[in-house]
């Protein structure tokens, strides 16, 4: 196995050894951030929005957090498409590793965005204050 040789060959491309492109980082954390913000902010602001009648605050939080998660999915997809065609989920090069990170990032963002939508729908149908 020409382990070091392959890494040397990769070094001229866009992913440095031991580094993750910024877009991939965003993709990896956006889903977690969005879900955390959705739960935390909704919980904190529920009393305020119910006492003042500003229900839209809860809807805005849900929409914004959904967009955050979706942006993570989008950047993950963009990064994923920039990798050379021969990358695989199991290979040993930096591109293969980044390919795997992109898959993880997109999966996190997609699943958490679905969760945010599933949590927000009742706010539109039922009153969040009852």
């Amino acid at each position, binding site marked *: 196995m020409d*382990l070091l040789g392959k890494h040397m060959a990769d070094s001229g491309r866009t992913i440095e050894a031991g580094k993750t492109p910024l877009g991939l980082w965003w993709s990896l954390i956006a889903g977690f951030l969005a879900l955390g913000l959705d739960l935390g902010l909704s919980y904190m602001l529920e009393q305020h929005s119910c006492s003042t009648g500003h229900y839209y605050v809860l809807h805005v939080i849900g929409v914004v957090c959904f967009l955050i998660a979706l942006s993570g999915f989008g950047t993950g997809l963009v990064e994923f498409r920039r990798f050379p065609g021969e990358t695989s989920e*199991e290979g040993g090069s930096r591109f293969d590793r980044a390919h795997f990170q992109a898959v993880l990032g997109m999966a*996190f963002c997609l699943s958490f965005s679905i969760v945010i939508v599933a949590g927000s729908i009742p706010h539109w149908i039922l009153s969040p204050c009852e």
Partner: protein
Amino acid sequence: MAIAEPIIGNDRDTGQSEFAQRLARTWCQPRGLWGWFSNTHHTDIGIRFMVTAFIFFLLGGVLAAMIRLQLIRPENSVMGPDLYNQVFSMHGSTMIFLFAVPMMFQGFGVYLVPLMCGARNIAFPRLNAFSYYLYVAGALVLWGGLLTNTGPDVGWFAYVPLSGPNYSPGHRADIWSQMITFTEVSALGVAICIATTILRHRAPGMTLNRMPILLWEKLVISIMVIFAMPAVMVASGLLLLDRLVGTHFFNPAEGGDVLLYQHLFWFFGHPEVYIIFLPGASIISTLVECFSRRRIFGYAPIVVSVVATGFIGFGVWVHHMFATGLPQLSESFFTAASLMIVIPTGVQFFCWMATLWNGRLQFRLPMLWCFGFFFVFLIGGLSGVMLASVPVDLQVHDSYFVVAHFHYVLIGGALFPMFAGIYFWLPKIVGRMADEKLGKWHFWLFFIGFNMTFFTLHFLGLRGMPRRVYTYGPDMHWQWLNVLASCGVVFMTAGILVFLANVVRSRQVGAIAENNPWGDAGLEWGMSSPPPPYNFLHIPTVGGRDPLWDDPPDQPVVVGLRDDIRETLVTHSLDADPQHKDEDPGPSIWPFLTAITVSAAFVGSSSL
């Protein structure tokens, strides 16, 4: 520390036997009593964690048997209420803090992670040894308390105000609080060692996307430990301050808040369930792949599920507090989150099933325990879905239904995989095979006894029997179900005795194990059984996710590490590229002495 680029090459032509002898001399651990306390090698410390935790499992089991004996008939007088309170509190505390986490996370992790990474020792070996001694000290403090009639009697969670100074005078709750500090510091220390080993000591080629599932799960658990354990340490620390210094953190009369304690405790307590379950799941993933003779189905979905479980596990703690009168919105949130966490676990289940479905299944002894896990954990998971619903939870709160649920989850999620893992890695640990026939007796006795005891408890709970009561009246009509539940303990005890006999027999006269008796793909099988003191003659390189299946016989190895000092290889966390060489600190008595000093400080601070 020497910093130089190691070379990856192939030196199979060099005189390996002489090289091996030099390495063995360099990496050998000192002998004798002094040497025993100075030992810092991960295989020895890992085995100690496992053996010590198993001893406490047996002790916790004795307490469980006492509980079932007391409840076998109405108005029984085997124990009075005071002793009963101590016994069930000690049972829970022992099983959670002294057995489940130390066995599933620390024991298996410390032993297996460096071997699976292709490393010669764990990162920070002295911190690792220190963590072991601190854990033992905490366990001795707790059990010393029981033997001197100061055993904790406030449950394994020690809720305030019951555990506060007004309702629990004396030192019983102090001992519980301080035991928490011991065991959690120990777990934190090991978490740091394991996470660093996984991130910085993986063999070259083992990039992030080639890490075995077990390493992924250990990494996630380590991070969970690092975030969860401080919460309970804060809770127990504040409780100690309330009790010993006279602060009022949990005293509502002085502006404190009793619910704060529950929030802090369960912010740790629910992730703790996953800290116990995920190691079991990692064992199942390893075994299912090995005995299906095919790659695990859905590597990426399993990794996503594990990470998602670790994250969502921190957002569900309030479902333990549904009966405390929370706002409806928070009930809705935490119901949703509690239901949500079923999804990643379900994904793992489906991936295991798909692996089995498409594989060439070899139905060996460890797989029997895997199938036991599928059955038991599934029932525990389904009753968990029921309990995530607030109306159901309020109905069965503090009843034996809950006891049945969490025993199905914890025994199903930890004990069944643990026995599967022990039978699987026993050949690696002792160099001999376990007896399959005795192992099957062990399984069936335990499986029948377990279901007889705990399935029955569902019905007791639905009939209204509350937890933590030392007796009940004959007019409640709970006796025959309690008799059935208590009879199950006899089967489980017989099963455990068969297991002990099997281990002793295997150690002495068991068939000699080959290096890789199961034909598994993990790096830990690429050496003699038991492993030599240096683990790997040469640090291996990895060419795929399943190294022993994927890699050719002439797979390159890392050369250039010195054999006259304990040199180890440090690699990049993402790509596992060789970065530099480091020197293992070697055996030392200081971890032991430091643990004694810290223990004295902890005990002294709780005896004010």
